[in-house]
């Protein structure tokens, strides 16, 4: 009836989650997603800094590019953009 007990040496070392969250598309939650007007963007990077989901990809020079697969559409970037270059558009 009884199964032999597994010793602690046979158990895995640690950590159970094994897939990167990158593979989970939280962008599906969004109703609105950002669209950047490149002519208005002053490359300050605040959208990148304030994004809770690390959605923006920014090389420090050009216009930040949002990764819409993971953007949940909170709209912080559009509110905080100093030149209002970001518009939230319905997806």
């Amino acid at each position, binding site marked *: 009836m009884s199964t032999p007990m597994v010793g602690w040496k046979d158990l895995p070392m640690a*950590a*159970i*989650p*094994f*897939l*990167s*969250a*990158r*593979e*989970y*598309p*939280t962008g599906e*939650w*969004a109703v609105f997603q950002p669209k950047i007007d490149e002519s208005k963007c002053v490359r*300050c*990077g605040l959208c*990148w*800094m*304030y*994004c*809770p*989901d*690390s*959605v923006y*990809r*920014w*090389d*420090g*020079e050009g216009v930040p590019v949002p*990764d819409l697969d*993971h953007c*949940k*559409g*909170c*709209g*912080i970037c*559009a*509110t*905080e953009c100093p030149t209002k270059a970001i518009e939230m558009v319905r997806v």
Partner: protein
Amino acid sequence: MVATAVWRPDIKELARVEGRERPVESGHRLCAGCGAGIIIRQIAMAARKPLVWVNATGCVEVATTIFPYTSWNVPWAHNAFENAAAVGSGVEAARKKLARSNRFSDDPDVELDYDVIVLGGDGGTYDIGLQSISGAFERRHKILYVLYDNEAYMNTGIQRSGGTPFGARTTTTPVGKVIKGKPLFKKPIMDIMVAHGIPYAATVSPAYWNDALVKFRRGFEADGPAFIHAFSTCPLGWGSAPEDTVKIMKLAVETCVFPLYEVVDGEYRLTGPSVSIAKNPDRKKPVEEYLKLQGRFRHMFKPENKWMIDKFQEWVDKQWEVLLKRAGY
């Protein structure tokens, strides 16, 4: 003692580093507009050495590691509410022991030069985890404890905690005819932590990112335990619009509900916008501006509940006066 050379964060360089390394990956399931998401990114940006991340139960813990996904590209350990700081001190003590024993000195795969960061929510810090933090600080373990304060147990369904402010509606302090939100005020967690005589303690609002990054870095550099109280907007529990997250973080500082300061070896120093408010009291905004953006304070704006706003303002003014006196203004 904190290193004298001040680190000046460069947003462009930080963006390039995050593009390469990404310690916190997108795809975690924090709510849209969650303030804690900004805080964990900023902690990772401010790191000077590899990090070992110890996380108490809370929103960040459950949302970033939903089976089988994990958002973390740094070594990360999950803990119960009450023992996060104890695990952090264990990690730190084990590193000291291993470094002394030279067991891994010729192993290129083992890195023993790292910083330990313990992240806890307000439930895990104000209420349940207070004893383990107190112990870790008393034993002088070199850990950085960051409290992200969203002012209630948001993850389990918005129950009140020791960090919930006066008048806030939560599911355990509902608004009715007799009780109108939480009748009590916030626990003075910074005073409790400073009383431990730790070398570095600070308050952080992620909206002022430059100030926040410098403080996180100084927390890592501190020679002993450091405590940082970070302000985190919760759109779900506070009934605020997700896009107003950063705006509320700014208003909390501008109204002096959450003043920015740091305590180095017991000496208080105001930082960021709080300095200009101290020098120029006209810049201090009335608390209504902060309260009106949040649904949890909506009942305070009814004419019969006007006394609640006055009481809140009075408390804020008193706290601010005490802080000004301590900082020497």
